[in-house]
């Protein structure tokens, strides 16, 4: 009854093309943002920030980047981890080698470097599709972490190979407590997510989706596949690069460059599959699910009074996790975002069945 569109008229095309066309959605989103920016900092503990919220923001940004490429443009990629690594290493080099460089500039430049690398490794997509392309991006996943280790200059010849982030400041605001790091990450993610939504609902997004749905027809109505695919690789890699820089700067703090391995790539891929391919909301839901589930699984049995050994818990976690993924794929192959959409459609007529 509360969530319905009847009686709401749009009188301009501008109003019809807004991100949230229904006032209820606008209110809900505004409340969500209020909770994220004000509510959470009032109540959250350091543990929640460092174990849950900060990695959630970093990885959902990476998932969003991958979703642009895979969900919207239909190009399967297994190089997310490596591209995050490129972003992280580029940002670290900029921060340590160029003193007094603005943090925002560092992130943008790190994103641009990753975009260039991503476009280079996206070149095979002009000739090959689907699983074959996934294997070609796998080459990036193996080559780049190897390069980070072999090319000593990238890590400033650190003997241990570990890169440690210098203290972060943004226009005099020094970002060191978990809460400040969370707010910074949240700001970056919110701005980039808005940018992604805008691209998706206008020309670039339509080009990408046209290539995804029917590349031959897209070419015949005048879309150049080369341009569409490479811009998708560039934008996706930009997002993933910024996510990698965030991951290193506000979450890890210090890392070995070869830590950006294939596990991270798979994690991002699972996030978008479970969250929903071709959905910005889905990237966030998927990241939340993938990150929260292991924490949930380790914490809930003790709460219920089951005293399980740590070894058993970690094995159990893998089993339940695997089973849940299979369950989700069978029940809702279009992901959590689709479930949310169905809920909204049901809500429109609630409490009546139709």
């Amino acid at each position, binding site marked *: 009854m509360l969530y319905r569109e009847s009686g709401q008229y749009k009188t301009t095309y501008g109003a019809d093309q807004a991100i949230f066309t229904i006032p209820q959605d606008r209110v809900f989103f505004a409340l969500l943002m209020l909770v994220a920016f004000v509510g959470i900092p009032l109540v959250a503990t350091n543990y929640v920030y460092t174990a849950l919220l900060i990695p959630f923001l970093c990885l959902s940004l990476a998932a969003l980047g991958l979703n642009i490429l895979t969900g919207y443009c239909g190009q399967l990629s297994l190089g997310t981890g490596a591209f995050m690594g490129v972003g992280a290493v580029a940002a670290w080099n900029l921060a340590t080698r160029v003193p007094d460089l603005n943090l925002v500039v560092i992130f943008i430049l790190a994103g641009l470097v990753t975009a260039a690398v991503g476009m280079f490794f996206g070149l095979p997509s002009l000739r090959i599709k689907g699983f074959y392309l996934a294997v070609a991006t796998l080459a990036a996943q193996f080559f780049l972490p190897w390069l980070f280790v072999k090319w000593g200059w990238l890590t400033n010849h650190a003997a241990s190979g570990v890169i440690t982030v210098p203290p972060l400041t943004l226009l005099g605001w020094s970002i060191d407590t978990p809460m400040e790091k969370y707010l910074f990450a949240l700001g970056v993610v919110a701005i980039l997510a808005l*940018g992604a939504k805008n*691209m998706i609902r206008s020309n670039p997004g339509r080009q990408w989706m046209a290539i995804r749905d029917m590349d031959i027809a897209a070419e015949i*109505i005048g879309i150049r596949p080369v341009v569409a695919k490479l811009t998708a690789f560039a934008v996706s890699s930009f997002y993933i690069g910024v996510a990698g820089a965030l991951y290193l700067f506000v979450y890890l703090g210090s890392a070995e460059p070869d830590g950006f391995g294939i596990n991270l790539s798979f994690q991002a891929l699972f996030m978008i599959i479970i969250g929903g391919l071709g959905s910005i909301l889905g990237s966030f839901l998927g990241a939340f699910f993938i990150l929260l589930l292991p924490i949930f699984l380790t914490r809930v049995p003790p709460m219920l009074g089951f005293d399980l050994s740590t070894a058993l818990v970690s094995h159990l976690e893998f089993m339940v996790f695997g089973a849940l993924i299979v369950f989700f794929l069978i029940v809702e192959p279009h992901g959590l975002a689709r479930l949310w959409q169905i809920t909204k459609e049901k809500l429109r007529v609630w409490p009546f069945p139709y």
Partner: protein
Amino acid sequence: MSVADKKIGDVLLKVENISLSFGGVKALSDISFEIREHEVLAIIGPNGAGKSSMLNCINGFYHPQQGTITYRGEKRKQMKPHEAASHGIARTFQNIALFKGMSTLDNIMTGRLLKMKAGLIASAFYKGPAEREQIVHREFCERIIDFLEIQAIRKVPVGRLPYGLQKRVELARALAAEPTLLLLDEPMAGMNLEEKQDMCRFILDVNDEFGTTICLIEHDMGVVMDISDRVVVLDYGRKIGDGVPAEVKNNQAVIDAYLGVQH
């Protein structure tokens, strides 16, 4: 409206001695014909005659081994499909080739991409020029939606639409580019009588109101004879007839191709 009082202009597209083969299979051999401005030209012929291949050559999807195509006075041996699109050649497909995951409106707006300029950065910011551009082109697309009477389905993902409506959306997407030459590959295949009548009306209206030149492939002879100004007949990759419908109907080679001939 009769054919007589319609103004048919100069030659818009001229096909000369086109030959196309795939390995040893000759799809088209030595085909020549012309399409004049503002006419409705039908290409007919039995299955496998090379009709779709001919359209594919015109819009640059296939590259013929021999022959030239002169379009608006410009002679060319081959071009890429997106170049053909930017020169004002649009088409629909025999098997519907819509973007299934997108809504009707988005499909039509995609057809209009060639006219839109906003790039990545402007689109990412959205407010300002990109938004104004979206609204201006939305208005044009809404005119096409009105014209083809598909207002009710503008927000529906095209994958969920019935076949007849999908065909109509595909026509809308082709029209969004404001083409000079519209190639329709079996626009009425698989439709019932009412849907065919609607589609004929739309094709004639497009031809009449927008002045679009139309080249269509169709198997329904009733439709072909009724709506086309001229008919080109292909059989086994060769041209066996060319002329106004009445002429073609009485052409012995055409009758033989359709009804068979005693050997």
